């Protein structure tokens, strides 16, 4: 068994870089500029040179100036200098012109000339030159260069010669051949893998707190809620399921089954919102104000986690109750199906002929055979409860993992998002391993085929 655990752990460690790669890919394909988010809002009003300086400094501080991955694939007019540009406008300028198959040298010359002269030019020319730097089509650039002729003829002659060079350098052959640029280990992906394996997940982009502490606190809260819900839901569901199968011939199981069926089709967020509006405020009736008001859980928790939690634990009652009720509906139905299937097997006829009462049959024999599948149900239930907690925590304003995930997506907080993805992956693997071990204990037959 220890070998089994070690094997699973090994696979987990091997697959962490893959998971980080997928998360990394997803994050880098979003249109939000990470460096821009890190710069303070007040500095947006500065003029261009100041802003460029601050942008470069912030990018270097956070390691965002490095290329994304170990290598880059491009058309043959790319050069490795391209990956050292930091300013997004410059990158965009080069990228658009390169994808229209112009030569790198000529684009470089034009850009350098325009940015050099643009720093010391007069107002009108400066305006035109800065417009050139952000335009992406060759027609627009020529149009603007024509306008420069009216202002500054000498500059115009230089610009025009470079522009004609550029136009002449267009060649179809650039696109036909690929080019692989190798960056080595000096890239963002390698850096993040190194960070992950040294347990440093970085800082949140939203409030600067360390990602680890943020995730850990929220995770504890959500885990507590889920464990509370599941460990109170399953015993009730199993008890109810057993009773329903034992007293199958009577009338009440059918009514209960229909009720549970209806309960299982209620969408979770509707149920929770209705519970919130009807049962937490005295709006509708004094008698319905059973549960406490939804208030600022965050503030109490941020001062001292455990004290705040114990003082405010009454706020967790309604969310946990919502989860329990809806899970009960689904789980009881499945338990009843399992037990019924087991009771119809031929070996149960022997038990009945022996004279065993129905309760003994169901409680002892059918239940033992069906236990393994219940464990599978429980694990898949816990893993999917992580996603259900997103909705519950949003509605009841509880600072758990689900709400952290939502917030990090809404505010584009990528380090926290990577951390959450890793956490959920590792957690799912651990839960699946534990459930495998427990089901092997319950059913020794499983050991023979499939220690995997």
């Amino acid at each position, binding site marked *: 068994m220890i070998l089994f655990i070690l094997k699973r752990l090994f696979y987990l460690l091997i697959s962490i870089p893959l998971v980080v790669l997928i998360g990394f890919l997803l994050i880098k394909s979003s249109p939000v500029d990470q460096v821009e988010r890190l710069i303070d809002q007040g500095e947006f009003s500065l003029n261009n040179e100041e802003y460029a300086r601050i942008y470069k400094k912030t990018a270097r501080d956070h390691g965002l100036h490095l290329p994304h991955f170990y290598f880059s694939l491009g058309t043959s007019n790319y050069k490795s200098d391209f990956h050292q540009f930091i300013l997004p406008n410059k990158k965009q300028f080069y990228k658009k012109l390169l994808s229209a198959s112009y030569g790198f040298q000529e684009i470089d010359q034009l850009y350098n000339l325009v940015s050099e002269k643009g720093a010391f030019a007069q107002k009108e020319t400066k305006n035109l030159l800065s417009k050139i730097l952000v335009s992406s089509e060759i027609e627009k650039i020529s149009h603007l260069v024509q306008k420069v002729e009216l202002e500054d003829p000498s500059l115009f002659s230089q610009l025009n010669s470079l522009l004609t060079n550029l136009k002449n350098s267009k060649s179809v052959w650039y696109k036909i051949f690929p080019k692989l640029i190798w960056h080595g280990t000096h890239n963002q992906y390698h850096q993040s893998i190194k960070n992950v394996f040294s347990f440093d997940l970085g800082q949140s982009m939203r409030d600067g707190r360390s990602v680890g502490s943020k995730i850990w606190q929220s995770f504890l809260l959500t885990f507590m809620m889920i464990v509370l819900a599941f460990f109170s839901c399953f015993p009730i569901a199993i008890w109810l399921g057993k009773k329903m199968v034992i007293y199958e011939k009577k009338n009440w199981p059918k009514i209960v089954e229909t009720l549970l069926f209806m309960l299982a089709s209620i969408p979770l*967020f*509707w149920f929770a919102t*209705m519970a919130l509006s009807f049962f937490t405020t005295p709006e509708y009736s004094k008698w319905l104000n059973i549960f406490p008001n939804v208030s600022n859980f965050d503030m109490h928790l941020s001062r001292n986690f455990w004290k705040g939690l114990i003082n405010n634990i009454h706020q967790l009652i309604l969310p946990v109750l919502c989860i329990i009720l809806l899970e009960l509906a689904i789980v009881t139905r499945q338990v009843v199906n399992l037990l019924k299937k087991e009771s119809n097997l031929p070996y149960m006829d022997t038990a009945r002929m022996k004279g065993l009462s129905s309760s003994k049959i169901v409680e002892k024999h059918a239940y033992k055979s069906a236990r393994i599948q219940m464990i599978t149900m429980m694990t898949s239930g816990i893993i*999917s409860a992580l996603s259900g907690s997103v909705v519950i925590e949003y509605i009841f304003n509880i600072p758990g993992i689900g709400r952290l995930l939502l917030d990090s997506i*809404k505010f584009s907080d990528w380090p926290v998002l990577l951390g959450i993805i890793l956490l959920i992956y590792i957690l799912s693997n651990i839960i699946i391993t534990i459930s495998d071990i427990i089901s092997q204990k319950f059913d020794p037959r499983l050991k023979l085929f499939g220690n995997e």
Partner: protein
Amino acid sequence: MNKFNLWSYRLAWIYLVLIFVVGLIGPLFTSNAPWKLETSQQTIYPAWQSYLDELGIKNAPESWELKDWKAETGIKTENLIPYDPTYLDLTAVGGKSPSEASNHLLGTDLYGRDVLSGLIEGCRVSLYIGFQSLFFILLFAFLFSILSAYYGNESLKLNALQISSIVILSCILAYYLFVAFNSGRLFILVIKLILFLIVLLAIVYLSKSIFVFPRLKKFKIPLDKLGLKFYELYSSIPSLILLLILIGIQSSKGIFNLSLIFGVLIWPILYRYLRIEFQQEKAKNSYLSYQNMGYNDFRIIFIHLLPNIIKTIINPLIFIFISIIITEATLSFLGLGLEDDIISWGKILAQARQRIDAWWLVLFPGLLLFLTLYSLNIIAKYWQVDKSILK
């Protein structure tokens, strides 16, 4: 199968068909324009004409874009629900319950929009998203399930030359499609992806017929095992998280983007179902005889295999359709759904959080969602019981 179950099954189907019909026809009855307008010169039917204009069948006059129908003179016979879903009734800003606002049957939301017409518009939006996502799901699922079920683990035998030619050609093709001529628009990217898959199939077929060297050793390519492994991988990730991330990184909100995301995330479910169906179908004796007669693979798949499958996939398709509707409602509720000016059931529910005593904003959309999910469960239960009886 007792009477209660049978009648609830029939009611469930009736309800689903009703939602479908309301989604199609409903906008005809919820618009500002009156049904019939009799002025001294002419009698026109503005609601019908603007409905045709929306469908794109027949364009309405230009002046109708910003026309204020409420101020029209002439004898009007009003529409059934005289409020457009996007019409802001300024007397009802802040939300009025059905008892306070006499005109609005189910009340208004916080901006003054009528809830009943919002619900009908929500039907329409749900149908849009459902069908668009179904298109992508069907595309991907059919492509992969046909391959993995038809070729199984044994049938696809390629020698080393064929394999290397396929790999090299597909890399070259991928480079030219995705790197060299990259335009960055999502729509074009999707088309390129589909094109890539189709051309890949053509490359495989071509190399099978061109590089035929009988003496070379052939390798079996276990497409089925690969497909299963992929499905395992997919089922080990909680899909809601992947969904949230994909929605967070999309560049622009919209129905097309959302249906693409749903398509990418949900197709493995249909793939798993289709694979089993195809395998069962293929195990019948007629397919052995088709191969013996020398029909090539494409002919067997498209002319003989596919038509027998279509009847059996309607059941899971309905499941998927309704789960898409519920997921979209959840997303709109969380604030991550569609653009701001599209109304959907989840969006009306989301407004209830801002004003807790607005019970009409919680009850009615939620009731519709509950009834949709409930009818789906009834239909599912009926089909399960039905199948077990047949066996």
